[in-house]
């Protein structure tokens, strides 16, 4: 059984399909990148999987069951820019929001929940920022707060929308370490990703998306020049990227 099964998923805005008949299998315990040009429907796919957008057709199964019955096993990291960082609250409070699903309606977070949130902040090296007002964070720090909020959910499947967007190299490093640690713990992580260069290094599975599914599967098999060209319509120079890749894949002695 797969961690996530998407079958015949179609999403349309006013009759115009933004996702067309998507089939996707995400195996357990993988890091999967979702790549594609702007407007390919990457964010829409994640939102449709999470039920934030109503699909025109198709179904989504998490561990063989519909998403709404598996809610507490799925964590979501939205794009950093999707919330108002001037909202009057602090870092610890935002991370504690990750536990609201487990708390259910009405029940309030208690000391034990704040302790869990602090623990998650420690994992992203943000413990000392717990009481900081969220408007005082840099982009990378905001991203790490969102990651901590997902970690505290202790889910089995993580969906992340561009967690590397606008973060510096050091933060990117520490985020990828975190994702690898999740994978080692048997979690499944699906990441909308923009930087094609780092796909082979960071991920073991990839979905190439442009309204339709172009290809998905292990990076070695589907992250090919031909598939990339189909996905991006020849709009960027992958030649250099793919050449670099094949050079990296070739053992020193053969060069």
């Amino acid at each position, binding site marked *: 059984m797969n961690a996530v099964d998407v079958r015949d998923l179609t999403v349309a805005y006013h009759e115009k399909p933004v996702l067309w008949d998507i089939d996707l299998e995400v195996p357990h315990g993988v890091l999967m990148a979702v790549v594609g040009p702007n407007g390919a429907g990457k964010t829409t796919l994640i939102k449709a999987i999470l039920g934030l957008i109503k699909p025109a057709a198709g179904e989504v199964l998490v561990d063989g069951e519909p998403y709404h019955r598996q*809610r507490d096993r799925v964590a979501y990291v939205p794009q950093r820019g999707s919330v108002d960082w001037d909202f009057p*609250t602090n870092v610890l409070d935002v991370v504690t929001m990750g536990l609201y699903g487990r708390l259910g309606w009405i029940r309030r977070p208690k000391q034990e929940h704040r302790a869990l949130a602090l623990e998650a902040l420690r994992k992203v090296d943000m413990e000392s920022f717990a009481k900081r007002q969220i408007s005082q964070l840099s982009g990378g720090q905001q991203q790490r707060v969102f990651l901590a909020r997902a970690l505290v959910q202790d889910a089995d499947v993580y969906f992340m929308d561009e967690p590397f967007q606008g973060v510096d190299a050091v933060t990117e490093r520490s985020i990828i370490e975190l994702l690898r640690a999740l994978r080692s713990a048997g979690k499944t992580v699906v990441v909308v990703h923009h930087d094609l260069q780092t796909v082979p290094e960071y991920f073991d599975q990839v979905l190439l998306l442009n309204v339709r599914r172009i290809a998905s599967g292990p990076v070695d098999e589907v992250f090919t020049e031909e598939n990339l060209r189909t996905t991006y319509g020849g709009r960027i120079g992958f030649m250099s990227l793919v050449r670099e890749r094949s050079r990296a894949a070739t053992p020193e002695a053969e060069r």
Partner: protein
Amino acid sequence: MTPEQIEIQLVACAVAAACALPGAFLILRKMAMMSDAISHAILPGIVVAFFLVGELHSPWLIVGAAIAGLATVVLVESISATRLVKEDAAIGLVFPVLFSVGVLLIARYAGDIHLDTDAVLTGELAFAPFDRLTVGGVDLGPKALVTMLAIGVANLVFILSFYKELKLATFDAGLAASLGFMPAALHYILMGLVSVTAVGAFDAVGSILVVALMIGPPACAYLLTDRMALMMVLSVGFGLLAAISGYWVAHWLDASIAGCMATVVGVVFLIVVALAPDRGLVSILRRQTRQRWAFAEKMLTIHLRQHEGLPEESRENRSAHLQEHLRWQADFAVDVVQRAVEDGFVVERGGFLFLTDAGRALASEAVVDA
């Protein structure tokens, strides 16, 4: 104070507190103008409900208003969802139409009863004590007071019960939805509360003051705190302040109570904008000035440090030289030197400047930082 004066102030306080609670969420959700739209657009709902039940103080009027308020929200959202106009324009399109329909209905069919358009805009708080609620011969107080207390308590109970859910849905609707908290449902319940609060309040104080009390106090509170819970409390506090001081200003000027309360809200907001710690204009100005002086002192120490112990020191590190070298105005240079001496970064001996240890530390720290 006469009993009437006390009752008028109590009504004003009940209105202010009841308005401030949902108003704080309007501010946080960047929907302040929605209060304007709702408080006007509920009029046709009230009028139609009045035609149906034929009684001016029936609770059905509140139901009618709530439906009209929700219809306003739905209309505004569906017009802006077409992406043909932005949300602010959609608001500007919807509520004048609905309000005008209400006004026309009153003018055409209800001209002879007490449902006039002046009362709609400004209300009349001064008459509140004369319209009393009696149950079984027992006087429970002014009707407006009882109504607004009930609405205020309903708002408070709802917000206290669903505080966590409302906070999450307001900050991150996407996460709220993915966790199953139905942010859309919460949104419409909240808008329903805004509508009910608006109708209750505008009977007493008119639609202009409804907007002032829903937006002004929470806007002040938003500038003063980084904690949402405290913002709610402060919003109510500012509302009560405006209610009571507005009443006494009106008493003193012998003018409309609602008008004076709305004016006080504006004045209080101006004071908060000017004086709020951290975010206020005065504090921003002071911070900028402080940073300017600190930067100038830093530049001075760096300049002195660079020439320290070198042959040109006697030429470069003279007070009189700063003017041309750092391109500072003469009096500014004197001020900077004086501040640097006071702060213990520099000592002046016979027209020459020398760094202290602290000054040297500041200079090297500044260079490393850069």
